[in-house]
């Protein structure tokens, strides 16, 4: 097999990642299943799965404008929530029975209010207060917030989320994480059988369909990857760092120029699967809280967590033997802009070429982006 692109399973993942509605969700809904949209990986999907509800990671895929959203949000709000909100306003998220936002960033936090104000008919809306800082002291606090969210879900959807169901959901999601870890392991090879662009599609699909089916499909894909020709040579091994990387634009640009993206530090990528949740202990909510506060590198919004994130990011760069790192953040995403500013000098000190830029959530000025990336790859190869 020349490329995984010809695989039926990959085509399925790619189709799911490049649209909002998909046949898996349609089937789920036909069987009377409920769907909750959630905005950030800090909102644990395990809780919804334990309640028999399908979690769907929110994104603005397919959006071409923010005309409708701009009535409620200003251009100072980054494009990710604006385009996602716009998709909801024009009915693309009608399949949602619930929405959970969190204190991820100011705009997303406010979306719960805008959602109701705009009259979008999503029956259940909940705002989760996540940990604002890292460290042991936050675990208990966050566990209590998760308890409140669990109680609200149980009450509204009339379901019982038992500890056993939570343990089962943790096991199921851990299986997903382990399979995704295997996928990332393949990217450590000198000539990876899967590109960065293809990996984005696989990862995004993982938060857009039922986990049981995803795990089954991903196992098939991993088997197929063993048959992919790995003779192709790449001009540079790069990693991507930054916010909400749910499209393949940047990877496509990089890979069309002959380089390959071998890993990432993004919240649709490595940050959702790099570790698993403990299946030990008698308080699964505490296990989830511990995983999200202590194990997963928090996003730059979280106070005082840059050193851990730096260590994690540098570790990825080393493990995947990257030749350079490309940082991207959406215009007006202040936390990531500050993070990338810090990482630039830290990467340079480590002797790893680093470039970062701001871009719109929906691709524009592709020519300028291509010039930067091409010049960066040329600089590495020089």
């Amino acid at each position: 097999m020349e490329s995984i692109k010809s695989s039926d399973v990959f085509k399925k993942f790619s189709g799911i990642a490049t649209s909002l509605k998909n046949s898996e969700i349609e089937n789920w809904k036909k069987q009377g299943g409920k769907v909750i949209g959630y905005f950030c990986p800090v909102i644990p999907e395990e809780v919804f799965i334990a309640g028999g509800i399908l979690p769907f990671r929110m994104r603005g895929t397919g959006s071409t404008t923010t005309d409708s959203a701009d009535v409620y949000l200003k251009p100072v709000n980054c494009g990710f929530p604006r385009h996602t909100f716009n998709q909801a306003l024009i009915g693309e998220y009608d399949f949602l029975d619930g929405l959970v936002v969190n204190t991820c960033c100011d705009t997303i936090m406010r979306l719960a209010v805008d959602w109701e104000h705009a009259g979008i008919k999503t029956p259940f809306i909940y705002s989760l207060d996540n940990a604002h800082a890292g460290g042991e002291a936050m675990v208990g606090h966050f566990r209590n917030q998760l308890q409140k969210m669990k109680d609200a879900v149980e009450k509204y959807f009339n379901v019982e989320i038992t500890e056993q169901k939570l343990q089962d959901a943790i096991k199921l999601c851990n299986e997903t994480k382990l399979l995704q870890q295997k996928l990332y392991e393949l990217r450590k090879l000198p000539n990876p059988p899967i590109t960065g662009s293809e990996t984005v599609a696989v990862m995004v699909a993982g938060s857009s369909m039922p986990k049981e089916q995803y795990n089954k499909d991903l196992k098939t894909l991993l088997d197929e990857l063993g048959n992919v020709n790995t003779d192709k040579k790449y001009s540079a091994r790069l990693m991507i760092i930054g916010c909400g990387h749910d499209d393949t634009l940047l990877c496509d640009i990089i890979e069309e120029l002959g380089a390959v993206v071998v890993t990432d530090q993004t919240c649709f990528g490595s940050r959702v699967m790099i570790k698993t949740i403990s299946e030990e202990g008698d308080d699964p909510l505490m296990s989830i809280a511990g995983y999200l506060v202590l194990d997963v590198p928090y996003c730059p919004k979280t106070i005082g967590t840059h050193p851990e994130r730096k260590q994690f990011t540098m570790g990825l760069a080393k493990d995947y033997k990257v030749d350079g790192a490309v940082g991207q953040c959406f215009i007006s995403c202040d936390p990531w802009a500050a993070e990338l500013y810090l990482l630039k000098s830290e990467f340079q000190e480590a002797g790893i070429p680093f470039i970062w830029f701001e871009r719109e959530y929906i691709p524009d000025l592709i020519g300028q982006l291509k010039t930067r990336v091409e010049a960066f790859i040329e600089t590495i190869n020089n």
Partner: protein
Amino acid sequence: MIVGGCDLGSTTGKAAIMIDDKIYCGDIIPATTKPALTATMAMDSALKKAGLKSIDEIEYIIGTGYGRQKVPFASEDISEISCHGKGAYWALQSVRTIIDIGGQDCKAIAISDKGVVTQFEMNERCAAGTGRFFQVMAKVLTCGLEGIGSVSNISDNPVSISNQCSVFAESEVITLINDEKSIPDIITGINQSVAKRVVSLVRRVGIHDDVTLTGGCSKNLGLKKALENLLGTTIKPLPVDPQSIGAIGAAVFAKEKLLAKRAKELEVSSKE
């Protein structure tokens, strides 16, 4: 050895031909709506300057600039960032910092003592700090781009242009005109405003002498003066047309590529 470079920028097309080590630059051709046509017109002009009859006499051509993939006769393409670094170093080996201000973007490029690009920064998205900004201002002031460059040195009391957005800055300039501010004061203010924007970009890669200015805006003497004041250093002039540096760099790359290709062919044939 005859090689060439063609730089298809956002507003102009430039071509350079290198015969042995001598460079022949064609005229600066305003961009047409057809990139391939602009490239051909630019190369035709360079052919004339080099005294060549046909493009077929050129053994290797590199395309660069925004339209680099649309240069119909290019053997391959290289980004204009690398080409400006290569061209400026070829023209003046003491150069370490290049400020390239073109039609739609502005770049600060750091090069090593071997002429290799080590770092670069580019303006984000908008037209502030680019030739487009000057075009908008020249239109409002009805002085042409030449006027922006020539009258600025006679102002003692430049105005302050606070808006970096060319659209809002245009409104600001209209207000200044209505306030009967003198045209030289306004133009100097415009040049200083652009220079401030550009210098913040240059600081990100570091200011290392020698500094030089390339791209179409390098011909704006008022901007050059404003940049020198803010950078605290002299901008070294290049012995060739600074607007053609991208094309020249592309031609230098073409020579290197051709030499490498020949060496490889020789290696293969000697093994056979």
